[in-house]
């Protein structure tokens, strides 16, 4: 007997959803037969707002595109502006930027540890990883003056140089976190519940991954080696030694394993950055921001974030304000078409786990 289809509204306020959005699902029993994402709860028209702000003012909006990991957005905007203007960035600033990006990557993954496990009812993990993430936020606070929104990477370099003794503090934090990652493994990856809930769930095939524009750890979880840091290197990633982990399978488990390895690669990169960072200038001063014009043209800069490719497309008509800016978020391609398709046939209890594994970030979809 065919079961009666029921419509469920998951969100927009729901602890399992990774932000304010809604997934409207039709279920038969507890199997999803149709899913439709509804967004619009976080639309702030940042791109339009940027058009009425000058090239510098625009930059303070950027961190709000994605809360867990704002730095790649700042970096891609800064780099797009530098590309368009032909502005040189001091070598030291590039290293500091990489340090920021990798710290942000770790912080974001640690939040993901919490979210992914929380979505499966494993709450201890979240308490640990979010607690430990605070040590990274402490580093951010010391370096940038802000814990979550850093507004630190700006066109021309970074806003402030490293404070005294900062490098040692970073290394000590890395040592601590590296030790903690073993505890995480015991609690999470070795945990039968986690394994059973994630293996074989939310599978994306290789072909589908390409067809549907999958990026980042999700794509690498499908066995495809793709990472902008290697493919289209920016800042100083081409001078650093690290690997891009991939996993076969395309399920939540594979994606989790990719992230598990990447956080270790980040530690490795950070240690190299601290070791190789040259002294010198950290900022190539921009002109008076009120009268700073960029040459006519456009530029697109993309950055590998924890959710995949984020990028900033900017268009200048030669004036002091952007003609148009457009932010390309990874969640934009994951959170709507892909999610809607992926949910079909899955268990209703796995919605939140799948969303978390895709790195869905509603503020990034709507901007």
């Amino acid at each position, binding site marked *: 007997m065919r079961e009666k289809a029921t419509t469920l509204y998951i969100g927009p306020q729901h602890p399992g959803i990774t932000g304010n959005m809604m997934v409207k699902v039709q279920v038969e029993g507890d199997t999803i037969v149709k899913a439709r994402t509804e967004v619009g709860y976080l639309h702030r028209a940042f791109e339009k707002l940027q058009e009425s702000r000058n090239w510098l003012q625009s930059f303070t909006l950027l961190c709000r595109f994605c809360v867990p990991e704002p730095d790649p957005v700042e970096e891609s905007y800064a780099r797009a502006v530098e590309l368009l203007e032909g502005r040189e960035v001091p070598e030291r600033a590039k290293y500091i930027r990489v340090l920021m990006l990798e710290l942000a990557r770790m912080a974001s993954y640690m939040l993901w540890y919490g979210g992914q496990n929380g979505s499966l009812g494993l709450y201890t993990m979240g308490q640990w990883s979010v607690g430990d993430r605070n040590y990274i936020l402490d580093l951010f606070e010391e*370096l940038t003056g802000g814990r979550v929104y850093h507004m630190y990477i700006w066109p021309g370099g970074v806003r402030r140089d490293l404070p005294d003794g900062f490098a040692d503090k970073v290394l000590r934090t890395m040592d601590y976190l590296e030790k903690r990652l073993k505890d995480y493994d015991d609690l999470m990856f070795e945990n039968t519940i986690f394994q059973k809930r994630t293996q074989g769930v939310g599978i994306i095939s290789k072909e589908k991954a390409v067809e549907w524009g999958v990026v980042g750890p999700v794509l690498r979880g499908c066995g495809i080696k793709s990472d902008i840091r290697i493919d289209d290197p920016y800042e100083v990633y081409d001078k650093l030694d690290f690997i891009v982990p991939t996993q076969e399978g395309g399920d939540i488990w594979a994606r989790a394993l990719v992230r598990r390895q990447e956080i270790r690669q980040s530690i490795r990169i950070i240690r190299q950055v601290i070791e190789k960072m040259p002294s010198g200038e950290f900022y190539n001063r921009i002109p008076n921001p009120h*009268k700073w014009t960029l040459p006519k043209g456009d530029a697109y800069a993309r950055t590998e974030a924890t959710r995949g490719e984020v990028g900033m497309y900017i268009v200048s008509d030669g004036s002091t304000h952007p003609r148009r800016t457009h932010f390309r978020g990874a969640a934009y391609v994951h959170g709507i078409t892909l999610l809607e398709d992926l949910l079909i046939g899955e268990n209703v209890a796995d919605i939140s786990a799948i969303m978390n594994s895709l790195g869905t970030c509603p503020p990034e979809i709507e901007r």
Partner: protein
Amino acid sequence: MSFFDLNGTLKPLTALKQFGKKPHTISYPKESKEAADRYRGLHFNDLDECIGCGNCSTICQNAAIDMIHIEGHDGKKGDSGLRPRVDNGRCCWCALCVEVCPTGSLSLTKDYLYVSEDPDSFLWTPGKDNPEGKEQISFFSTEETSLNVLDRVPMPELEGKERVKSFAEVVLGYNEAEARAEASRCISCGLCTEVCPEHMHIPEYINAIAAGNDADAVRIIYDNNPLPEMCGKVCTRRCEDVCAIASRGEALAIRWLKRYATETAVTADITREIVNPEIREANGKTVGIIGAGPSGLTAAYYLALRGYDVTIYESSAKAGGATMYGIPKYRLPIESLDKQIDYIKSIGVKINFNTKVGKDISFKEIYNKFDAVFMGVGFPDAWSLGVDGEDAKGSMQAFRYLYMINSGDKVDIGDKVIVVGGGNVAIDAARVSRRFGADVTILYRRRVEDMPADWEEIEGAEDEGVHIIPQGIPIKVHKDENGHVKSVEYLKAEMVPDPKGGRPKPVAIEGSNTIIEATAVMAAIGQMGDYSFLEKEFEDKIKIERGRFIVNEKQQTGDPKVFAGGDAVNRTADAISAIADGFRACKAIDEMLSA
């Protein structure tokens, strides 16, 4: 995988080992976390250091900062009297306001906790509402991180050695790219307009230059200054003293930018075309003006624009007054001045040259002929040193010397010139003498840093090889057997602090007599007026006190029909003040005659 996985069940239980470990959290509310040294918390503003330029308010992309009046800060020159108030309900602590603050008075503090049920209480005037913030400053700007462009685009100049060979203009002027770069440093606060006697629309014309619209800049400049190219070259530019950027860097080159803009209008005709002034229909009223100096020309130009029939009487052969005869041509070339005067004439101002009032025409005649009279007569005479031997041949007034050189006359100065004084006239006379091949020494009572002359002029003189003897008080001019200057004797002086807090006074040291050889001595210690052209009946009505006409705020003298301006009225005695006088008088005359 079997249903029951022993390892996978036991491993997570290792989490139990965390029991008994010290927690990482701190126990709020007992302890609140000490913020980092760079924390971006609530604002603090040093109210005395702040100049109220409002750059913080302009950069704030959340419109969180208002500029408001607060008690005890009423504003003065170089301070708008406004102070920022932050709406902490809107602020996002990006600290761009800190980065653009030219004085560095605004900063963020470590204080990050503020809780209130009253949403209105989130409006804070930093510094006033949180004076304790001074002790908690964490995120501040330095010269290194400031978003103000602190360094001025250098002005190309002739080399010192090249300069003394001729009267070619020393300052070469910005090219377009340099002007745009310099103009784009401006933060458009407008503090400069307040100290400009004429209140020129400085931020507007600088922004027009920055935006690449020189024609608009010229139009804005001519709105209230008919001799802007002269000002662009030789203005005393008090505007630059209060430039917000100068709090930590070099002031905007406001004067050079004006010069750049006006020089894009190469001829009088082009100036006319660009400015394209609206000239009102003739209203049948007439105004007579005595003296074609900056104040007279200004009054004439704007009165002519308003439809008046204006006639100027000028005793010399050329217009420009002190800017023509007092300023050496390497600073203000004759062609430049002529261009501006041609333009003024082109809109209908009539100038009678070589007509000295009191000799060629009486004041009374002018008074009776016109509906209103403006006197911009300047200071044609100079103070003498008042020392023995000053009557020697070769002893002269620097001001007179400059007048003769600028008139094209030859003056015998020999090869050793001593100039006494520290103002612009002294420097000008010294640099002119250098151009005639003389060794020049400036003798000044006080220290070099006390010299009232423009610092750029002093530097220029030094570059050209002028020797400066500071703290020297001349006491005697020695003559040779022909009655010609032979040497100058002076006493060295020591600077004695003024007990009242004024500037230190030079006091001669007894017995420190020094003699330097000289072929010419020039006194440059000040000028004075000559009002002998006024008939007795007018002299009584038009009051003169301490060598200057007494006027009201409309430049009106004791006789309501007679107005006056320029050096013979104001104490600042510079061209821009004269222009301001002329402009004010124009408005007052217009008001009086159209009533």
